[in-house]
């Protein structure tokens, strides 16, 4: 078994290129007009994902049982000047775990997607880009060095862009795609800049010829050298820039708005965006670069602050939204905020587990919501829904389990939440503990609010459409995964994903009870508010959940962040651009125009001079002659004066 997995890992380049090849095959499939078959496309891409799963299981096995914890393959790609960039694969615990998560989820999402888009005209395009995304994310997860990460990082952004832009005739969708890409581009630029800064130091300090540039396997060394060599400020800037990259991909404040707008995308894409992308890009990057961050308390503090703001703000915002997709989007931002806080506080393993667990559950929820939305004829507003449990009990159950798990009551979500809480609690950090509990509370509130509003209560009038089984099966699998995850934390996850200098902790039973109590409180409040009206709660509902109430308005409009952004863009950036345009048109160009005009004026003067009167011609000549004579006489007089 170890040999087999070793062989597979050594051929990991093939694993990387497989999705690309499949994408090409699908293009060919789509290009041949009459033979093109949708099933073939599905089978091809499912096949790739399956191979991915096998590969990652092997990788996991390899990492668990092999002596050398990491396997690395590298290929020199760009060699110029001092720069020697390699592309390669690195299979270690972290990448194996995330690879497994990714390939499994991707497999399920693809199955779901088939059900989702099988009627669409551009069916093949969807799968082409799914496979390309698969390629880029595989490359990202397996990347052996930071430069490669940058490359695949940006690449994944492009394919995400295309996936969101799937319905490009819809203006909102294409705008959302643009926004997503551009916001991510900010992160890309920051990350690129950070990596270039790191390159500077690694080229200068470690000039070993055959070393892989910014390789992850000796990142620790690089980071420590860097820390010892440069000033704290420089180090902080360099370490901070990748954090910004991760913030955009993980939709942290203030780069969150793309994930909200991207809900225009098809549901599977949405699931990938909220579940897979943060794990495979931002999360992975942060965990990879953790050796760098650990050295600077400022960076960790920054992680904490950003995460805390996002977690609180977006959880709060999610509580009042009506669009189901937006609720999940804000929920994603909020939960990933928790991940940031966890990393900031030093809970490396716990944060990783939380991240993956959240990924699985968020995919589950978004996909479930997708099923519901599909059957409700693309109605997103939960106010018009209700009582769906009768018509689709299975989905309702899955949704209930999913929200329970995500809010931390069940399965892997419970494990993840307890882990986080333990880390906060054990570090004697009371304020953080309160904050995180508050976030848990709010999460439970908005998740169950959705459940109650959608599946319980009065039945809505909208007629239900039949939903393909392709869309329903993956949901069950996801629940199973979540359950399975709950059991393999200690044996598998914690032994693979760890940070050497940080110890792993677990929550005491008392803490678990407290947490469960708070969560149940939240569920109860929600239940009382939305399910069985209770007079006292109704009062709250009328007072607080009122369109006129400031708190509610803030929550409903997401603290007007979007408006502020828009204001900045329209009033500031565009004004500035127009100002530059003005300068260009009237000043830079104006100088040229004026020069041209002077030429014209001169030529006009000359033509006026040429008045046809021969006497004036003579007069000009005599005048010039006299002028030169005067000058010469002057020179001679001056000369004689000086001579005297």
């Amino acid at each position, binding site marked *: 078994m170890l040999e087999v997995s070793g062989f597979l890992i050594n051929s990991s380049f093939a694993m990387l290129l497989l999705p690309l090849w499949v994408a090409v095959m699908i293009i060919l499939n789509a290009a041949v007009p009459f033979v093109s078959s949708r099933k073939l496309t599905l089978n091809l891409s499912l096949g790739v994902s399956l191979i991915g799963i096998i590969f990652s299981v092997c990788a996991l096995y390899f990492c668990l049982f092999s002596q050398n914890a990491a396997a690395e393959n590298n290929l020199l790609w760009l060699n110029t000047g001092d720069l020697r960039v390699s592309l390669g694969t690195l299979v270690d615990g972290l990448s194996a775990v995330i690879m497994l998560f990714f390939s499994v989820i991707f497999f399920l999402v693809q199955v779901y997607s088939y059900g989702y888009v099988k009627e669409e005209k551009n069916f093949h395009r969807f799968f082409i880009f799914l496979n390309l995304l698969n390629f880029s994310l595989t490359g990202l997860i397996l990347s052996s060095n930071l430069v490669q990460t940058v490359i695949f990082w940006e690449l994944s952004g492009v394919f995400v862009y295309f996936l969101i832009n799937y319905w490009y005739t819809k203006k909102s969708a294409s705008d959302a795609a643009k926004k997503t890409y551009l916001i991510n581009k900010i992160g890309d630029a920051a990350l690129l800049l950070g990596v270039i800064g790191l390159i500077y130091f690694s080229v200068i300090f470690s000039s070993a010829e055959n070393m892989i540039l910014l390789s992850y396997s000796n990142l620790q060394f690089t980071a420590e050298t860097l820390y010892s060599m440069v000033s704290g400020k420089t180090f902080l800037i360099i370490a901070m820039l990748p954090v910004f990259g991760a913030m955009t991909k993980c939709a942290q404040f203030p780069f969150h708005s793309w994930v909200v707008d991207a809900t225009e995308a098809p549901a599977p894409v949405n699931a990938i965006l909220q579940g897979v992308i943060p794990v495979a890009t931002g999360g992975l990057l942060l965990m990879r670069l953790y050796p760098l961050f650990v050295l600077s308390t400022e960076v960790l503090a920054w992680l904490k602050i950003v995460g805390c703001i996002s977690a609180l703000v977006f959880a709060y915002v999610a509580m009042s939204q009506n669009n189901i997709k937006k609720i999940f989007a804000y929920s994603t931002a909020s939960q990933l905020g928790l991940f940031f806080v966890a990393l900031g506080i030093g809970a490396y393993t716990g944060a990783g587990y939380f991240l993956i667990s959240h990924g699985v559950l968020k995919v589950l929820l978004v996909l479930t919501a997708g099923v519901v939305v599909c059957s409700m004829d693309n109605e997103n507003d939960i106010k018009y829904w209700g009582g769906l449990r009768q018509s689709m009990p299975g989905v309702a159950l899955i949704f209930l389990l999913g929200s329970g798990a995500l809010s931390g009551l069940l399965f892997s979500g419970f494990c993840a939440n307890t882990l986080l809480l333990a880390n906060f609690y054990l570090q004697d950090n009371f304020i953080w503990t309160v904050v995180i509990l508050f976030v848990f509370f709010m999460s439970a509130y908005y998740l169950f609010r959705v459940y109650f509003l959608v599946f319980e209560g009065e039945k809505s009038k909208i007629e239900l459409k039949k939903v393909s089984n392709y869309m329903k099966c993956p949901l069950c699998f996801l629940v199973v995964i979540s359950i399975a995850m709950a059991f393999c934390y200690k044996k598998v996850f914690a032994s693979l994903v760890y940070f050497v200098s940080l110890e792993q902790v677990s929550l005491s039973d008392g803490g678990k009870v407290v947490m469960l109590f708070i969560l149940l409180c939240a569920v109860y409040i929600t239940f009382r508010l939305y399910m069985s009206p209770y007079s006292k709660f109704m009062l709250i509902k009328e007072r607080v959940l009122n369109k006129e109430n400031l708190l509610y308005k803030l929550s409903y409009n997401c603290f007007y962040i979007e408006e502020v952004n828009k204001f900045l863009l329209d009033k500031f950036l565009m004004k500035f651009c127009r100002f530059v345009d003005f300068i260009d048109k009237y000043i830079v160009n104006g100088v040229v125009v004026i020069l041209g005009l002077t030429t014209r004026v001169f030529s006009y003067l000359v*033509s006026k001079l040429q008045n046809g009167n021969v006497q004036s011609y003579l007069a000009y*000549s005599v005048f010039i002659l006299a002028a*030169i004579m005067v000058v*010469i006489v002057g020179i001679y007089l001056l000369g004689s004066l000086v001579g005297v």
Partner: protein
Amino acid sequence: MEFLTDINNAFLPEIIIAAFVFINIFLSLFFNKKFYKTSQWIAILGILMSFASIGFVQAEPTYHAFANAFISNVYTVFFKSVILVASFFAVLVSHKIVRRKRARAFEYFAILFCAILAAMLLVSANDFLSSFVSFEFLALSCCLMSGLIKNYKAKEGALKYLVCAVVASALFLFGTSYIYGITGSINFDAIEVSLQGYQGSMLFALSSLLVIIAMMFKVSAVPFVNWVPDVYKGASYPVGMFLSIVPIAAGFALLSRILVIISNFVPVLGVVIIILALATIAFGAYGALRQKDMKRFAGYSTIVQSGFMLLAMGVLSPYSLAGMLYYLICFLFTNVALWAGMIMFFNSNGRDDMESYKGLAYNNPFYTTAMIFVLMSLAGLPPTSGFLAKFFVLSAIARLGFMYIIFLLVALLLGAIAVCLYFRPIKIMFEKTTETLHLTNKLVFSKFVFYFCTALTILLCMYSSKIVEFCELIAYSL
């Protein structure tokens, strides 16, 4: 018999031209309807004979003829051949004028030959008297030529030319009279001898300035420049072509020879000439920018070109002189080509305003292409000889020293404006128009001149090495 030896050794071409003047006058007495057509052939014959006889002239070492009044050396021979070539082209393209003049065609050629003779004399004049005589002679014959055709504008042009010419010669005389007074001699060689050890004085400076300014009339440079477009407009095309080259070449020959003698004693003269040259270029360039008439445009263009040649005069080293000579050669062919092109156009539809060139490119691509090359050469753009010529002249200034860089810069920028003005006719030729214009020119001669000279403008750029060497050789002989 010394007289005859002089003629044989130094004056053969001039004598042949003079003989043809008389032949022409004589022939003009016999009027016959068919006979006048031969006048052009006779003129061609005269010029060819004269050109051939240049080979018999003593050029090395310098030959002093007629009691040292005229000289003959490589330098003068070069200018004489330039003048003869230019006149040859002028004769070739005067077919139309011969037809129009009919009986008086011989008179026309007689005056033309007078002008050639005068120009050649001016080139080889070696004292103030001979230079003044040929100066006046050239002015008068050019004046008569430009007033030859029967319309008011020609007369007005001729009148303006005459007024300017006589004032210029008066200035010339007045200036030379003081130099005569200072040196006690009118002969250039004697002046050079007597000036040895001379410190220079204000009077000398002023008088040489007068002489130089008077010469500016011949080379059509500032300050005696305003007559140029008016006279060209009045004159007929072949005369315009002649005027735009021959007097200028002759003027430069004399100017350079006078400058060689006096420039050492007048320190600011070089700068004055450079400034005048720059002013000339500016005047020509700015004046041509608004021009609507092709003939006047050609006039301004001539001013620009002569300004560039004058620029080389301000430096007066063998190098710059060689540059000037090379420029002159290029200018000769390019300008001939320009005028020939204009003549071709004029002969086919009798119009000379620039607007009538509209849309020419679409029906006469070959003509247009050639014309573009000509204009590019005048503008100094590659791959034509004009580019090299400008390069040569400007490099002479660059060689002078860092203080002259400002002049160089101004010259270059004015050159850029010159590009602007030479693009104008091209632009007009490419403008869209409804009427189709065909050049119905059946005259082989003007066609030949046009295309031949255009080809030369390009070839001169490529096979320039030998020519530049040749020019340097000539410049050293001065």
